[in-house]
């Protein structure tokens, strides 16, 4: 279960100027739920994902995931938490362009120093699920947008995390590829993953497998 308790997040623009990205936000997401956070750019959707993944810390308030206060974790423990529990699909995918598909997907496993056979098994599984096995040795920079996104999703799932966070996942895709991505989410939902999607793409609205849609405006939830 994910709990955000009275979260406020301020970003400093300069020494004297700051922006309030989240303003006293509280939210609970149960295990297996699919939540769509919708709203205009700058409404605070990405900040919520960033806080849940312990990529940044709230200015005030608390983020609790499965009983663990992730907002209080030290930097190293936050990394371990992400590695074990979170699969993050970034808006710009955040792949390393000069690495191959295989190498990019392997990145979350690298610090674990797995046996070669185990690593290969996990790689093969996710590459097959997301239909990119035939591109395994291709450099990511030579892939299309849709293929890059599938690599990003495969990478987010290689550790079999319980929580999937997707930040504007279809922002760089055409409608056909966006619909294909939505089908992938449906499959992930069937695996009982908790999924939170930050998007302003109308394709995500009123989907049958989405548990809740929450609108955001100026750093607040419009419940």
């Amino acid at each position, binding site marked *: 279960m994910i709990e955000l308790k009275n979260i406020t997040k301020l970003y400093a623009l300069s020494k004297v100027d700051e922006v309030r990205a989240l303003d006293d936000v509280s939210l609970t997401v149960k295990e297996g739920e699919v939540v769509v956070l919708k709203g205009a750019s700058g409404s605070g959707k990405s900040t919520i994902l*960033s806080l849940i993944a312990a*990529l*940044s810390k709230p200015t005030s308030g608390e983020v609790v995931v499965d009983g663990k206060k992730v907002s209080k974790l030290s*930097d190293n423990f936050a*990394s*371990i938490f992400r*590695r074990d529990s979170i699969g993050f699909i970034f808006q710009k995918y955040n792949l*390393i362009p000069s690495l191959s598909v295989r190498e990019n997907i392997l990145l*979350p496993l*690298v610090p674990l120093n797995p046996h070669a056979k185990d690593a290969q098994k996990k790689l093969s599984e996710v590459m097959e699920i997301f239909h990119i096995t035939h591109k395994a040795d291709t450099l990511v920079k030579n892939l299309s947008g849709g293929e890059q996104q599938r690599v990003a999703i495969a990478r987010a799932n290689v550790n079999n995390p319980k929580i999937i966070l997707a930040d504007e996942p279809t922002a760089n895709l055409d409608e056909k590829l966006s619909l294909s991505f939505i089908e992938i989410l449906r499959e992930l939902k069937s695996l009982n993953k908790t999924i939170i999607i930050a998007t302003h793409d109308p394709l995500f609205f009123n989907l049958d497998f989405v548990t809740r849609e929450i609108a955001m405006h100026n750093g607040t939830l419009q419940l």
Partner: protein
Amino acid sequence: MKSKINIYFIEFAINAILRQKYKSLFIAVVFVLLTFLLTSVFFITNSIKYELNSTLDSLPEILIQKTKAQRHDDINVAEVDKILAIEGVSDANARVWGYYYFENIGVYFSIVGVERFENQYKNSLSKIVDTYELDDAKNPSMVIGSGVQKSMQKSYYKEYFNFIKSDGTLKKVSIAGVFDADTNLESNDMIVMSKETAREIFHMPESSATDIVVKVANPNEVATVLAKLKLLYPESRIITKNDLKVSYQNIFNYKSGLFLALFVISLFTFFIIIYDKVSGLSSEEKREVGILKALGWRVDDILVEKFYESFLISFFSYSIGVGLAMAFVYIFQAPLLRDIFIGYSELKPSFELPFVLDVQTLFLVFFLSVPIYIAATLIPSWRIATLDADEVMR
């Protein structure tokens, strides 16, 4: 069982080096050049020091040179008996020697005269006297250093050499053998012949010698003997082995000081690169660190990977640099660089740098380069890795 060394980090590090191939190549080239230059200097220094020390150790404790108006003049051999009478002196030899200019090649040879029944002041000379018959007045012969042999052969003198005496006539001397001394520096330009032949070439009367060398059995008595000799010969230059050592080393240090300036320039270039690295990572590198953190890499993981990356490139470059320096100094005899160090090279027809492998030198160059570069890579990476991943990727 799982390996302790994370091979995936090493693979990632190799990939990272290859990804930035032009930057990596530039760093490697500068690193190789610096290591090569630094190691070459140390290798040459070690070789010359070894040669100098070997040469100096074989010198007598005291050398007496007669001077006239501060100019070197021949000394009377009868003085040897007076010197032997001084307490503490174990032996004294009147030396006949001098430089002979070989115009064809433009080099100087050192001619040293020996006498079969005299005590020799050097072991190397004793060996020659025991091995060769140089005293035959009808057919004078000589033993020459390998450098002399090469020079003579260039002018087709393979079995004998014609020395030009002071009156313009020639003195034919047969080559009996090639000198094989412990040190190259000492023997390379040397010609050993009988004192009689040497005197004839230098037009020196039998009663005269170039100088007198004195042996003192107890090193603690050198100062006392020296004081007595100064009283006996106030008009002469009396030089101790230590004076010679200091003089030789001063010449050597002065020459190496010139090179130091060149070295400092290279070092400066190296530190500019380091400064560039310490001052920050490129935006691409920063973003990559952010991505890795977002994917669950800890700060330690990022630093380990960066360590492998910097170690691989620096150690590889260090090894190449040392290998090139070894080939340059010991196989090719350090062309250009060698002359900077050997100040009196005009007196030497040629000079072979002996192979002296000093592990300390290798460690010194290693510690002056590899850890500095690794630190320069790790510090900015650590700075970025300790920031929030979100902030770094933004």
